[in-house]
Structures are given as structure tokens and as C-alpha cells.
């Protein structure tokens, strides 16, 4: 009998600590499948963030380092500039990348670091228990915006893909989502494109993935995927923002 489906070699045989219905597992698997398919596992170094995926190295079966909060792109820069032959990716959430790590991500992108960034945007701080993120939706209730995000007080959610695609430096910037089967297929294709860019030494690549946080949103997994479609997708359009060669 042929094996038609199995664990990617780039994933370890560990049970994740992620909550039921959280989409980190899907995104981990897609990154792992792409590393398998491109034959990159043995020359890849991942950079884990601070946030729910802080322990990502327990699940990925490749070399990994754990960065300080928000500093993953700086650490990845250090790795890639020291060993350009390695494939380097960061895996960051929205608090890590868009709040405390805003400086590091903008400058890594602007320098055109030949790294891949998997940016998981679930509009909330998950690990610390559901605080307001820079990507939290207007009116969204969190533990630090108990009356809902007031845009007059704290501004509108940051659209990182739009912001980063305004940079002149060639890059691959895309926003995608994993709340639908179609979105999952597209996401994996974009992740593959991002890693292929790095193999070809082409450009900085960032794949923003709209993700769910059923636990901190207070929704069951089904309702959470509906919430992504209803609330996040209209504000965070799913599209390729930039490919190398398309700079203005």
C-alpha cells in the first residue's frame, strides 16, 4: 500500500501546546512541508519569536534559535549575513512583529535581507492572555481594551503588509489566510514562493497569514474562522502586495 499522507520530516513527533482551533498548527505544517519539498531542512535555521510560537523549535525538526521579543529579524540578519548559504526564516506573531519589533522588521525589509518572515496575524496577544495588539480590530474587546478598541484613543490597526510594501527595496510581500481550504492551499504556495526566493538569493519575503485565536477571542473554532472572514478580511485584504521587479 502506498503512503499518501504523513508527517513532514521537518516536523518533530511532538504534540503542540497550541489551543484547539488555533491555526499555528496548520502554518507550522505548511512551512515544514515546503522545507521538505524544496529539500531545505538540513540547511535551514528558524528563528522563534516571543509569543505563542516561542517554543516553535519543539515542533520544527531543523536548527532553531530563540530571539528576544521582536528582535527575530535582527537575529536572522546576523545569521544570514554570517552564513549566506543557510536558509533563514523567522516565525513571528503580530505583537512581536508589529509592536515591539516594528523597528527590526522595517529595517530588515528595507535592507533587503534575504530571509523569509512568516507573520502570523491573529489580532491579539495570545500567550499573555488576550491583550490588545497593534492589529486588534476597531471595537474588538480584549483584556486591555475592555470596552473595545477605541481608534480615537489608540489609532487604527496596523496593516504591516501595506506598510512594508511601500518600501523601495525589492521584496515579496503577500497577505493570505488559513481560515478556508482555498486559503490554506494559497498560503502554502506563497510560503513556497517565499523560500524559493531565498534559494534564488532574490529578495526579502514576508507572508502575512491571517490566523485565529479562538481562546482569546472567546469563540469556538468555527465561529473564529467566520470572524476572520467577516471582520479581518475586509480590513486586511488578501493579496500579493509586491513581487521583486514590481517596485515603483
Amino acid at each position, binding site marked *: 500500500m502506498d503512503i499518501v499522507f504523513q508527517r513532514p520530516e521537518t516536523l518533530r513527533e511532538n504534540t503542540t501546546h497550541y489551543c484547539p482551533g488555533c491555526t499555528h498548527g496548520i502554518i507550522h505544517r505548511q512551512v515544514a512541508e515546503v522545507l521538505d519539498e524544496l529539500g531545505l531542512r538540513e540547511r*535551514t535555521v528558524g528563528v522563534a519569536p516571543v509569543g505563542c510560537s516561542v517554543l516553535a*523549535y519543539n515542533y520544527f*525538526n531543523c536548527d532553531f534559535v*530563540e530571539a528576544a521579543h521582536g528582535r527575530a529579524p*535582527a537575529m536572522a540578519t546576523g545569521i544570514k*549575513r*554570517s552564513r549566506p548559504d543557510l536558509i533563514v526564516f523567522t516565525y513571528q506573531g503580530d505583537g512581536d512583529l508589529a509592536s515591539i519589533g516594528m*523597528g527590526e522588521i522595517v529595517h530588515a525589509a528595507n535592507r533587503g535581507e534575504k530571509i523569509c518572515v512568516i507573520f502570523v496575524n491573529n489580532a491579539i496577544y495570545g500567550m499573555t492572555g488576550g491583550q490588545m495588539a497593534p492589529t486588534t480590530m476597531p471595537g474588538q474587546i480584549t483584556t486591555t481594551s475592555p470596552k473595545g478598541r477605541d481608534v480615537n484613543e489608540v489609532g487604527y490597526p496596523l496593516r504591516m503588509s501595506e506598510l512594508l510594501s511601500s518600501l523601495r527595496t525589492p521584496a515579496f510581500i503577500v497577505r493570505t489566510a488559513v481560515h478556508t481550504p482555498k486559503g490554506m492551499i494559497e498560503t502554502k504556495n506563497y510560503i513556497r514562493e517565499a523560500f524559493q526566493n531565498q534559494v534564488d538569493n532574490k529578495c526579502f519575503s514576508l507572508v502575512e497569514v491571517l490566523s485565529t485565536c479562538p481562546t482569546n477571542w472567546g469563540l469556538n473554532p468555527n465561529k473564529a474562522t467566520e470572524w476572520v472572514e467577516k471582520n479581518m478580511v475586509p480590513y486586511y485584504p488578501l493579496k500579493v502586495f509586491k513581487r521583486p521587479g514590481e517596485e515603483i
Partner: protein
Amino acid sequence: MAKKLMKGNEAIGEAAIHAGCTHYFGYPITPQTEIAEYLAKRLPEVGGVFLQAESELGAANMIYGSACTGTRVFTSSSSPGVSLMAEAMSYIAGSDIPAVFVNIMRAGPGLGGILPSQADYFQAVKGGGHGDYRCLVLAPSTVQEAVDLMVDAFDLADKYRSPVMLVGDGMIGQMMEPVEFKPRKQVALPPKDWATTGCKGRKPNVITSVFMDPEVLHQFNLKLGAKYEEMKKHEVRVETYKCDRQMDLLLVAYGTTARICKTSIDMLDELGIKAGLLRPITLFPYPEKELYATAKKASKVLVVEMSMGQMLEDVERILKGEKPIEFFGRTGGLIPAPEEVFDLAKKLVKK
């Protein structure tokens, strides 16, 4: 090799290359910017990499990443910038990674001034960042010594898998002196089999400072503590000057201040006042036994620093009240004059 006249900051940059350092990440700040400027030109000439970071946070986390691949790497900054680097330093210590930091200290606190200072002693020696860690701290008092210690810093970092910091005041960075790049000592160092370089032919390596299990983290801290005890046993460096006699006064100073004190001691000699100098070269590990033994031969102790009295607290700790200890400090970028130390010493001896 012939001696070359070099500015301290540039000599530190060249010394790093001499030590086999191939990568530098940094951010401009006075009075150490010449290190970055020198390496921007020089590192590419030797096939190395220079990168200007977006901030000291960026620079320090870049050297963290670079060091994780087993690369010889360093960064440099001055006081306010080193405060920002303290984050990465704690992570580097917390994951057993070797890296070299240089702090050309300027006057603080806050933005302070740009002139020489020694007010980052606590930050360098007692931690600086969070958690139970130490840096091995080297304090040169001449440009030549800055070169020699900078070369050793990389070996020490690799030997102990630890952050090592070279601290100089702005004077060390800015003044020019003749220097020589001596042939490197061959030091047997452990293999960097922990480095994250792709897992071909081995199990994946993970570099992390996260230990969620308190018992595991406690054991890790005990391991770090044991490492610092090894440093105390093997790495203490100290110079004494005119201490081979009974002394009216023992001066304790490091870096530029120590050079000034030597002049004051020679002036005191002419008056028949016997003074000596103990100059720690390693600020951590501190020459505790050497200070205790040397102070026994002196009637009084005078600590001189370009600070409000930071190393003073270590001297007090080590001498345990057995000798009267006086302090002279200048801050804000003011450098003690040999005459000032001389005048104070005279008064103290007469008392």
C-alpha cells in the same frame, strides 16, 4: 612587527580582525564611532562583513544571531547604547553563546555627555541586563593593552561560551598611541558543535534561553554560576605598581584613572610618601585576593574613579572594614588631574 601610531578606537577594530573576528554589527554613538567607521572600510578588505544596524537593539541582536552560527563577532557602543544592548547580552549569557562587546564609556546618567567616564562599572560588572549572569570584563589602561585584551576577549568568549566586555573610557577610545599587533597565542578552544549551521548529518541544534521548568532553569543558573567561579579561579588579571613595600597609601584605580594615579604616586615618592597602585585589569573577575593581600601592606586605601564611587563598593566588600578607605571621584567627563590625587593623598597620609 613595527609599532604603528593608532587611535584607540581604530586599534580596537584592527585588533578584532587580528583575533579572527569576521563580522561587526554596530550603531554610531560618540565617543566610539571610529570603531564602526574603521571596520566599514577594513572588514570588506579581509573578506569580512560590516553592517550598520538600525539601533543598538538591532546591532546586539544581530551579533547574537551571528554568534549562533559560530562566527567570531563583536559590537561596540558607548554607555546609552550599551543600556539598549543589555537585552541581547542577557540572552547571549542565557543561552551560553560567545560574543564580544566593547563599551567606550561616556558620562551619564541619561544622555549625559560625550566625555570620558567610568560610570558604567556597575552595569558592566554587576550585570546590566536582567537575570543571574555576568560578563567577563576587561579594562585596558593603554591603547596597546586595549589591542592585547581585545584579542584575548574573543578567546575568552569562546572558552567560556559567554559574553565578554571590553570597557574603556572615552580617553582610551580617542587617544593615539603606538601599538603593536603581536603574534596570536595558540589557545586550545572547545569545538563549536552547538552552533546552528544546518542539521546535515546531526540532530538539530537549538539555541534558546527559555527554560519553563523551574528546576531546569535553576540547574542552568547553577551551571552559569560554576562558569563564573571558573573565571574567578583562572582569569583574574591585575597590575601592581610600587606595591612591593610597606605603603602609607594604596591607590586602587583602573583604566585611564590608573595611569593618572601612577604619576601621582611618583610625585608622592619625591616627598618621601610611599604609595602604591593596584590596577584591576579584569573588573570581573575582580582581583579580590590580590587586593586583600596588597592592602595589608598599606595604612590606608584610596579609590580613584571617574564615577561617584562604583568600584569603591567592591573594594569595601573585599577589605571588609579592615582598612580605612577613602574615595576620590570626578564625573561628568572631568578627568582627575595627577595634582588633585597627589594633594588629596598628601592630606590623607598626614591625617
